[in-house]
């Protein structure tokens, strides 16, 4: 840029005037921004009127490959979670097309009663069966059933008391299950009406329940 001394005096005067700072009143900025905003609303009128315009408006989302993978994994995860929840709560039809057997007794009276004939294998007729665990414990104030089907969580399946009998119905997959009863939160005891599992070293034997797939 040439020095002003080298310019024509007239040009130098004009340049000096142009370099003077422009003084604006305080509301100028607000007026300009209002004008810009008005122009944008005029260009896209739907967005301004619709309360959910931001959500319904088409837009381009830029995602990194990692972000895209995370979103895809999230969608798959949602599908897995939903499928898992549906599988544990909804009985599936059997291979032969029969519906799930409505209920099968897995436990039997124990305290203060005789031991009836047990059912070591419960024909379920489907992959999932509703198994009813029964324990007679009149003196107990709380009974739960724990096993490999609920990760041995005593809070998962508390039993309901009807008189002196405690019952709970649990949907189980076909196969071999180990379980036990927890009485009053501290006394572990096997189901006396079911086969005993081998002592695994924790001191209290578990019971075994077989849930079969076929109805034959």
């Amino acid at each position, binding site marked *: 840029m040439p020095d002003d001394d080298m310019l024509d005096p007239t040009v130098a005067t004009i340049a000096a005037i142009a370099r003077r700072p422009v003084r604006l009143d305080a509301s100028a900025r607000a007026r300009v921004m209002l004008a810009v905003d008005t122009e944008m609303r005029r260009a896209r009128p739907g967005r301004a009127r619709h309360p959910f315009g*931001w959500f319904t408006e088409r837009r381009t*989302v830029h995602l990194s490959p990692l972000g895209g993978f*995370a*979103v895809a*994994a*999230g*969608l*798959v*995860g*949602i599908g*897995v*979670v939903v499928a898992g929840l549906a599988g544990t709560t909804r009985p599936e039809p059997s291979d032969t097309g029969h519906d799930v057997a409505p209920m099968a007794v897995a436990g039997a009276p124990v305290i203060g009663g005789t*031991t009836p*004939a*047990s059912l*070591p*294998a419960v024909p379920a007729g489907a992959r999932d069966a509703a198994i009813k665990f029964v324990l007679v414990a009149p003196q107990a104030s709380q009974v739960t059933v*724990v096993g*490999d089907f609920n*990760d*041995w*969580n*005593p809070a998962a399946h508390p039993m309901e008391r009807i008189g002196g009998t405690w019952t709970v119905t649990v949907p189980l997959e076909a*196969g*071999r299950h*180990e379980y036990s009863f927890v009485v009053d939160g501290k006394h*572990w005891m096997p189901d006396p009406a079911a*086969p*005993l*599992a*081998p*002592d*695994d*070293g*924790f*001191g*209290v*034997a*578990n019971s*075994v329940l*077989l849930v079969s797939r076929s109805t034959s």
Partner: protein
Amino acid sequence: MIRRSRKCLLQLMLLPTLLVVPLPLAAQDASMLARLDAPSRYQVELMMDSASRLDLPRETLLSKALEGISKGAHGSRIVQVVRRHFAALRDARGTLGRDVSADELNAAAGALQSGVPRNSLATLHTTRKGNSILMPLVVLSDLVSRGVPPENATSAIINMSQRGALDSDFAGLRRGVETDILSGASPATALDRRTREFPGRGAPGAQNPVVPSPTRPQETPGPSR
């Protein structure tokens, strides 16, 4: 500024989605084993990984650990139990091969831990001729748990299997022995009595069953099916 706020909003919307991304199996196991002390948890996770590599059911080992946690067992005890079951699973796999289900493998591992010899497992597997050995193994372990000597229980189960016993026969045997024990009979006597009552199914020797000596189960002259 508006663009930045929208970007933040979009990220907030994606956050719940990312939170439900299924965790890897190891992470899920770790969360379930969180109540175990760190050294014990590390040992259990190592064995579970080894089980996966050996095509053994790792879920069983996890279940054992969770059972121990729920029963209030000490970490070292839990590790000991899981290690013992892992070894039994490996032995059962080596004995029975790969054509058995995870449930059968678990039952076989339990039988081995009860004192049933490996060769008896193989014999039982052979005599069942492709049928599931799950029920015989469950009954076998139950008998041993009720005080029947392992060799007696093993020979009785193999003998019944050789004479064509069905799952219902094994279940009946278990009920009968249990009833006799509750009536005061010794476990060995109860088993001997109930085994002799089994007539056999569709075999020449069915009318006159022979109960072999418990110490020599391999010499049972049971007919083939």
